[in-house]
Every structure is written in C-alpha cells, then in structure tokens.
C-alpha cells in the first residue's frame, strides 16, 4: 500500500496502518493491558508510548507494569514481553481488582473472530448448537469481563469479511451494545465499543442506535469494498467520509526497526501484505 504523509509519499503495509490507526485512540493517562495473540494492540501501545502518548500506562500480558521488552516477541503473553517491569501484578487479586473496577484499565483492545452490528463479539462458537458447534473457537478468556465493566472498547480485526462482520453474532462472548439503543445502559454497563479498526476501514457506533458506522476508509479502499465485506448494512457518516491517516515515516521506522523488527504484527492476516 502507499499513501501520503504530509507531502511525502510513503509505502507501508496494512498491519502498519492498523497499528497507527489503533495507536491514535490512546492518549497520556490511559491505562491499557493486553492478552494473548495481541500483536497489533501491543505494537500500538509501544508506538503511542514512544510518540504522542509517553504517559500511556501499559500492563504487558496483564502482568508487567511499565515493561521494557527488547522488541515484540513471538507471544504477547510470555515473559519476554514483560521484561524489566516495575511491578508484577498479582493475577488473582490485584489484576482483577483493577479490571472489575471501572476506575482502572480504562481502555481495552478487543480481538475476536466475529463481531456484529452492535459491537457484540463472539470468540466462543460458530453455529447454532452451543454443545455441538460447527467451529469451537478458543473461548472468551477475559473478554467477557472487560467488555461488561465500563471500559472503552477498541476492536481490531485483520480480516474484514461477511463471515467476521455479521448482523448478529452466533454467541455473545463479550457484550457490546447488545440489542442496540440503550440495551447496554439498561443493564448498568458503562463504557462500551468506541471504534473498530479493520484491514479496510475505521468504524465507530452511532450515539443513539448504537449501530456500527463507517468513520474513515483506508487509503486505496473504496466504500463499496467495505460495504461488500460487511455482513450487515453499515451506517454512513453524515458529511464527507475521510481517509484514514497513513502512517508517518517516523512511525514506520519505529514499528519496523524498534518495536517489531521480526514482523510479529503481520500474523493473523490472511494474506501477508508487504509494502
């Protein structure tokens, strides 16, 4: 892919754009943690901390506070990521004290196999029969907790397709806006889905209907392509539809040379896109 940064043409791959697009949602003072197989969010946190949000607080693997990994390792849950932490957070009491309290870990990045028009996600089963599913997915892990506890949720998905973006998920393993409207608020759940960063576009949610809405398309992607890849009718924004900002050369240099020289961020993409 290529795009423009200021008046410079730059080449980048879609994983790099997703990293910068996700990083843009994190600011100083935010608190973030990551779970397993979360290369894009981890790269986004590291990038944000090195550029516009040095005071973004990061608990690597939900274990290590303010870690100093050498680079992104092959796992986002193993010790190499929480290298040189300032604190190991006890998982049974302290970490869950933080998660279950809406004051802490204010933002969370959600990755799941399926998501629907109201931002509910499914990482449990594909199919109608929960006890004899067509596909048994990994399971909710901590997703169901983080989605229901007043966190602002940022979704990433490397494979925007009608199979992954569906009208209604087969199983709600993480609560988005549920049936839409005030359904989430009626259950007393704060926070909720704020943005979706896919390999095609950035989406948000309409403030009233809570339906997913196109916010910007990535450079070189058309609205029709996004619509065709979405299994439900995507709302269109009022006014002009902007293009997602391209990564800047300094961002790309950091991602490629410092943060993720091994290219772990490219895993999970159906086709490895190279610049």
């Amino acid at each position: 892919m290529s795009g423009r940064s200021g008046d410079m043409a730059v080449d980048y791959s879609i994983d790099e754009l997703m990293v910068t697009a996700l990083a843009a949602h994190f600011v100083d003072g935010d608190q973030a943690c990551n779970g397993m197989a979360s290369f894009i969010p981890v790269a986004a946190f590291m990038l944000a901390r090195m550029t516009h949000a040095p005071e973004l607080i990061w608990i690597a693997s939900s274990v290590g506070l303010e870690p100093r990994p050498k680079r992104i390792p092959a796992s986002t849950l193993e010790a190499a990521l929480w290298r040189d932490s300032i604190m190991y957070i006890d998982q049974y009491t302290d970490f869950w004290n933080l998660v279950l309290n809406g004051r802490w870990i204010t933002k969370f990045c959600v990755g799941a196999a399926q998501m629907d028009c109201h931002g509910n996600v499914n990482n449990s089963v594909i199919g109608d029969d929960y006890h004899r599913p067509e596909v048994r997915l990994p399971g909710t892990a901590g997703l169901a907790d983080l989605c229901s506890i007043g966190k602002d949720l940022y979704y990433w998905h490397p494979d925007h397709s009608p199979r992954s973006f569906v009208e209604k998920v087969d199983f709600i393993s993480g609560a988005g806006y549920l049936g839409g409207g005030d359904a989430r608020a009626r259950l007393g759940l704060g926070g909720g889905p704020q943005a979706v960063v896919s390999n095609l576009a950035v989406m948000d949610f309409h403030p009233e209907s809570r339906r997913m809405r196109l916010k910007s398309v990535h450079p070189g992607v058309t609205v029709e392509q996004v619509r065709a890849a979405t299994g439900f009718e995507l709302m269109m924004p009022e006014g002009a539809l902007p293009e997602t900002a391209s990564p800047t050369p300094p961002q790309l240099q950091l991602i490629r040379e410092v943060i993720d020289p091994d290219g772990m961020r490219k895993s999970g993409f159906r086709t490895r896109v190279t610049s």
Partner: protein
Amino acid sequence: MQEKATSIEKAVGLIRNGDVVALQNMATQAAPMALVREMIRQQKRSIGLVVLVGGIAVDWLAAAGVIDRLIGAAVSMEQFGLCQQYRAGVEAGRIRVEELSESLLNARLGAGARQLPFLPSRGAIGTDLVAQNPDNLRMMDDPFGGRAVVACRALVPDVALVHAHRADRFGNVQYEPTAMWPDLAVMPYAARRVLVTAEEIVDSEILRRHPERTVLPGFMVDAVVEVPFGAHPTSFFPAYGYDECFHRAWTEISRDAGRTAAFVDNQLRTPRSQAEYLEAAGGEQMLTRIRARESTGG
C-alpha cells in the same frame, strides 16, 4: 512435617476416573505436563478438566480420550493456534464445555476455596455465558439495593495439578519471582487433593531462605514429585521457555488422526521416565534451546 514425596505413578494414582481435575496452565505457560502425561499413561477416563486458559495439555488429554468435559475460559496455544484435537472433540459432542470468563471462573473457584456457596462478579453481564448456564450462574439483586451481580456457584475440583520451581519433601511448594497466574492462587485451595511436580526437591532449609516465595503449605499437598523440565513443552519462566519446535510439530500432527494416535503412543505413553520423554523430545540440544535466556525473556 509429613512425608509427601512419592513417584509420579502413585501421585496420579490418586486421581479417579470421573474426577474433576483442575489444571494450572496459561496458554503456552506453566502446565504440569508430566502429570498430564501420566494421566494419559494410566488411561484415566471421564475426567472433567478445569482450566483458565488451557494449551497443549488440553489437546493431549482430548487426543487420548481422557476428558469428556471442560470448565474454562479459553483453550488456545496462542501463536500455535487452536487445539485441534480438543476442537474436534467439542464439535463432535464428545467433550462438553462450560465456558466461563476469567472473573467468573475465579469466583467459582474462590467460593470453593472459602466454602462459600457462591461469589459475585460484575463480569460477563449481558453475555450468553450467563444466559446459557443457569446451573452455575445466576443474576441476583444486591440485598442493599445496589446493582445486580452474577452469582457464581462454588466449584470444588476433586484434584488440582500444579508444577513449581521447587518443593521440599513435605510438600511445601515454592515459586521463583514471576507472573503468578490466578489459577495457582485458587485451584489448590479449592480442590480436595493437590498433586505437585517440582523442578527440584530441596531441603526445607532452602525454602526457609525465602519464605515469601512459598506458595503452598505442605499440609495442603497430597503428593510431590521431582520432575525436571516438568512443564515441557510449555514455558516455565525463569527456568526455561516453551519448546517452539515441539509445539509446531504437534500443530501438524494433531490435524491427522493416525499421526496423532502414533504420537500419543510413542511420545506420551511409551517413555518410562521423564528422562526418556525428554530424550525423545530432543534431548540435551532441545534443553539447551529452551533454557536460553532469550527464549525465557529474562
């Protein structure tokens, strides 16, 4: 203090067919794999597995037909993908899954540890996890008029399986400073029996140098067995990393029924000792690789 050191055969002999067995594990990390293999060797059947985030251990137990139900938050080998044998078992209806979020599983086990009938959480409200599990999860009102909670029914496993850095022969169990995943803090306290493998069995005097690193009191432990590299092929920070080759080989093998059966026989059932198992898994060269500092992130 009472002697708890024994053989792996006798330790696993304490598990009965049909038991609910809680397994320490976090994806590619810290699973008591020697105990898992011994369960396979002893052909345990109808085991219900409790696991926070299960990895290759779950896949092996599924492949060997040991488990027929699972209570847990996720099963994944992370970078090595889904557990194919487990997945096939669930999709065919041979393994029944009670999926819980981490906070709900912690609450169920925490209630078991404290002999409370339930503990509440605010996690997972609104999800189908709650809706489809009325036996163990119920929305309930706050008696003081506040927000509703999910009551999570106490879960008391029959057995908990733990791997640790060191222990003494009385079952006092110690961990090196590292991530303390929640399962270690609650599964042994909740379970009726606790079986432990340790990288080394040491004199109690060694433990007394760092009493703050002792994570389980000997009186809670029923059996302790010395098993060097007892978590292989999962990682056991800071001692060693996960075995990438071994995981990768399994992801290939596990897609094929014949190769899976051969693997279970040759690699898991046949080796008569940990030394034989490690030799078959790559021997000293493999051990050097997983001990490398880079691989453990140290």
